[in-house]
């Protein structure tokens, strides 16, 4: 017995023979079992394909939802991009306004300096007028002295005339001896009269000069007032320049604040935009993932098809076995 068990070849032969010698009942049992297994396989395959379909249905839902999100996100991203562009434009505008303010401040400074120059020039002109006034006063004094001299000389001329009259009276008393003297006295009288006439003319001229000089003084006084007014105006103008400069400084400071705020806004928006971009990209990679799932599920569906066709073919083969013919 043991000996025969160790004879493997013999054993195999026996088994082989047993298979060959399947009873009708056993054969029937095998076929029934095969059919049962086939049915089980068919059901399993049906469950599998149904599962695949549900899987696909869910993927499609997810894909559609992601796609919708993507559309919204893309629109938001585009809006953010527009805001970034607009903020950048605002930044550029504020920058150009600021540089405009800087050049304005330079112009104001130049204007203010020009006003200072003008004011100095006005001071000079005013000084010149004062000097001229003083000189004219001196001149008036001197002219007054000339008038005094002229009065003195007039007195002398009158006295000389009186003396000459007395001399001619005395000469007349002296008779013939006085004839020559009378001639002299008369000549002296003539001279004195001539001197008087000349003095009158001088007086007239000096009076004229005095009148002219008074006119000049009036004129200078008037001009002095004008210059003073101009000086006052230039001071006011300078004040305006100062106030404009102050206001421009305010504008510049405000522009700076706007720029800082814009800069911050821009940074925030760019950050927001980048975050959005990341979300869009992550959505995209989710879509790529879903694309892979689609391909996977496509392959799976081919395999399901294959499974079904294999099952059908086995069924036909079992049928052939059952009927004992192809």
């Amino acid at each position, binding site marked *: 017995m043991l000996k025969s068990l160790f004879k493997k070849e013999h054993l195999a032969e026996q088994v082989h023979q047993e298979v060959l010698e399947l009873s009708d009942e056993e054969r029937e049992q095998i076929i029934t079992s095969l059919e049962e297994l086939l049915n089980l396989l068919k059901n399993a395959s*049906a469950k599998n*394909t*149904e*599962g*695949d*379909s*549900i899987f*696909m*249905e869910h993927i*499609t839902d997810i894909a559609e939802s992601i796609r919708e999100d993507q559309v919204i996100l893309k629109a938001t991203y585009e809006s953010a991009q527009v805001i970034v562009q607009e903020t950048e434009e605002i930044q550029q505008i504020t920058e150009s306004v600021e540089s405009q303010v800087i050049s304005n401040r330079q112009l104001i400074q130049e204007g203010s300096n020009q006003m200072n120059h003008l004011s100095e020039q006005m001071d000079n002109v005013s000084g010149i007028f004062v000097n001229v006034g003083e000189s004219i006063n001196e001149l008036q004094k001197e002219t007054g002295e000339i008038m005094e001299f002229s009065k003195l000389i007039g007195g002398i001329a009158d006295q000389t005339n009186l003396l000459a009259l007395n001399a001619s009276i005395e000469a007349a008393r002296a008779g013939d001896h006085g004839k020559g003297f009378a001639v002299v006295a008369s000549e002296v009288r003539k001279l004195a009269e001539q001197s008087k006439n000349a003095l009158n003319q001088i007086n007239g001229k000096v009076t004229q000069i005095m009148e002219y000089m008074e006119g000049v003084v009036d004129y200078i006084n008037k001009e002095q007032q004008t210059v003073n007014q101009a000086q006052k105006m230039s001071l006011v103008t300078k004040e305006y320049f100062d106030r404009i400069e102050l206001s421009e400084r305010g504008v510049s400071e405000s522009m700076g604040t706007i720029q800082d705020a814009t800069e911050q806004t821009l940074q925030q928006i760019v950050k927001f935009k980048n975050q959005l971009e990341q979300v869009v990209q992550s959505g995209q990679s989710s879509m790529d993932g879903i*694309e892979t799932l*689609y*391909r996977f*599920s*496509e*392959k799976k*569906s*081919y395999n*399901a*098809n*294959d499974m*079904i*066709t*294999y099952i*059908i*073919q086995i*069924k*036909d*083969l079992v049928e*052939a076995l059952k009927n004992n013919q*192809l």
Partner: protein
Amino acid sequence: MDFIRSALTKTKSISHAIEELAKTLHKEPALVLFFTSTDYSFEELTTSFSKKYPKAQIVGVTTTGEIGPNGFEEFSLSAQSYSSQFGTINAVMMNDIVKYPIFERENLVQAAKAIGINTQSKTVEKEGLAFVFPVGLQAAEEKMLSVVNSIFAHDGFPIFGGTAGDDAKFDTTYVSVNGDISSTGGAVILIKPNVDFYILKENNFDSTGKKLKITKADAQKRIVYEMNGIQATEAYAKAIGVPAKDLSKYWSLHPLGRKFSEDFYNASPFDVKSSGAIEFYCQVYEGAILEVLQPRDAIKEMQKTIDHFTNHFGELYGVLACNCILRKLQFKQEHLFQPLNDRLKQLPNLCGFSSYGEQLYKSQLNQTMLLIGFGKLRVE
């Protein structure tokens, strides 16, 4: 390069027709494909081609309309020849794809091995390609595909083909391989080409957004009993918005599609059963969610397809096309042959036929047009 030639004739005398085609085809081709209307005797054609080209492998298919160098034709004979420089070719007849296609598996393995196709390769897409021409009206395409694909250890071997037709008589279809004729089998042509190729699927349908879930079906018989929990005909008619009794008048414009990402794999209805169930041109199974489709502008799509297709090639030597019968019927009804052909004839050495189903890789499709072009791909 002179790798592929094609010609079409409407001459009814077989001897004259073959002589006419021979003027254009290669003198000593390695492979001749012929696609013929049932107006011709298939048996006589098979014998005559074998006699004319004794050294060539010859594969014949009955059709429901042919495609030739000038595009769509009917009641004609179209042929395409491949030169021996084109590549190594091995045509095999699977005698039975209806019941026991598995019996043919070993034969296929040997045929692939014979021309150096490594079926165990991980990059099986680089090993070559196969044309398949299953007979129609037997609901057997998926079985044939499952067995052809089963010889490869990994997925991705390019398989391209169309189901034989019979001029819409829906009676018997035939294929022949090297003189053998079958009405229950399928032709498999294994090719290791010396040139590049590119396959394009034209699907000129969009979703209407309406969905139908198959709730009761028999995948083997391709019959759907219920959709959305109600009788299939009723559910389908409701989705299209037509009375159930008129459904078959409208459904060719509204096939159902299984959506994968942005693309649809179409399933077209074939026949209404008395019970209100619907038989399809391809396998359909329970649980699947299908979308109701609507057609796009056929001419615009064709132009787009041809532009896209030709754009892939630096040089294009020849094109083989399989176009669904339902598309052909629609094009004919809408008088679109002329404008479509004006575009199709831009493709050099075009040949093919209108089919009862289209095969691409592992799937059996409906209402699509498949194009395969051989040439030099454009280097991007």
